[in-house]
């Protein structure tokens, strides 16, 4: 770990512009070529748990954006004083503290929002993407780069969450963000698609279908992106 830090310092000697090509890549890479969910297959647990609704996916994406962005900066600022033997514990403490403080502040000033978020608090703390970025990136890079990396990765995570949430809510409940978009499914008063004999697929709401939808997303991405097609 120490060596990596040393090397990084040497390499960074000439001052880089804030939005150099390399820095921009930190944000754009996780969106496609190095997506934390579809390529690195991290953060799957939360992606399965909360994507039955589009709204929950969006809330989770925003929450992770905040925690990963700020957490990466904090870890990066502390990177030279964190003892390597207990670095994982330090990372956990940082992310747990951040989440709890945010939760308390929301409870005091935006009570309604905090009620929606409370379900996610545990899921954010244990999200492997957050721990993964702290360990792999923030510990070895400066705060600005770490911030960009945090933003990039949480966007990459959020995009997949929203795609999966969109299809699961649409096909599972026939609604989007809670609004019925396919008509009224109640027996006896059917309208829209339901009047033509369409039925919601209740299986879409269960975790196995999240895995299958995610698999389809990965399949489409891998078959279209040449950089990801393996030789054999």
């Amino acid at each position, binding site marked *: 770990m120490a060596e990596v830090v040393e090397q990084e310092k040497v390499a960074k000697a000439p001052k880089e512009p804030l939005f150099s090509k390399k820095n921009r890549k930190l944000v754009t890479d996780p969106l496609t070529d190095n997506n934390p969910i579809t390529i690195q297959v991290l953060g799957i647990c939360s992606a399965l748990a909360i994507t039955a609704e589009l709204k929950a996916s969006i809330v989770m994406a925003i929450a992770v954006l905040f925690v990963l962005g700020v957490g990466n900066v904090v870890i990066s600022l502390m990177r030279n004083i964190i003892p390597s033997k207990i670095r994982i514990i330090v990372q956990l403490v940082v992310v747990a503290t951040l989440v709890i403080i945010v939760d308390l*502040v929301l409870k005091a000033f935006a*009570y309604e929002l905090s009620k929606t978020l409370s379900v996610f608090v545990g899921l954010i703390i244990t999200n492997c993407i957050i721990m993964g970025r702290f360990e792999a990136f923030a510990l070895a890079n400066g705060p600005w780069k770490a911030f960009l990396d945090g933003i990039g990765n949480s966007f990459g995570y959020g995009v997949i969450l929203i795609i999966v949430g969109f299809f699961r809510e649409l096909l599972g409940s026939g609604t989007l963000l809670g609004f019925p978009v396919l008509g009224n499914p*109640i027996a006896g008063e059917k309208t829209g698609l339901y009047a033509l004999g369409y039925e919601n697929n209740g299986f879409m709401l269960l975790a196995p279908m999240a895995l299958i939808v995610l698999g389809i997303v990965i399949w489409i991405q891998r078959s279209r992106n040449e950089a990801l097609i393996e030789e054999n």
Partner: protein
Amino acid sequence: MEKRTDKNSYTILFAIGMVIVVGSLLAYAASALKGKIDENKRIEKQQNILYAMGVNENEEASVEFVSKDKVENEFSKYVKKQLVIQGDKITEDDKAYLIDVKKEKTLAKEDSYQRRLPLFIGDKEGLTFYVVPIRGKGLWDAIWAYVALDKDMVVLGVYFDHAGETPGLGANIKQRFFMDDFIGEHVFSNGSFKGINVVKGNADPLNKDKTDNEVDAITGSTITGDGVTAMLRSELKLYVPYFKTLK
């Protein structure tokens, strides 16, 4: 050469320092915000009780409470009396809505303690509402509800809430399509206490039959639904003696 940060003594000192800093930071945040958080919880309780009575700002399919600045007035306007039932003793207490049902449930596990049961008597458009707060277990965490009943224990309105049910599944107990199903349901069946069951494969999906003691369950949230059934049965039962005295 060993780096300074690899030393055991440094590691231990760092850990101690971190615990002190983080601990005091969290303790400070928690105590500084406690007043505001408690106030929010109090307002929420008033909003929930009013919601069960049908005093709300609902639109088409949404759940909207009376707004925060109006809640205090509306609460004193509609809620006429607050009672605390403890065994045979019934006392009036205008702070009854602040009783922590969770705490009472825990205390009641000891035989020597007689659980305090809050009950709010409301009046809206000449109709008398008996609102009771109840609490139970869902799949992941606690679920609770405010149930408004008439004097025969027929449901006039409910408000369900939960601490951490699955979004899109169990969490839907606080949606209109589920809560509205309870309105008009009977808790008694042929003169004996039965509760209201949340059932799958309900032969009455539109819920036209209000005397079958059944409402339609939510797909994919069996355990939360069973939790609602169990909560209604065990908790409403405690209030039956009081409702008998109204006859």
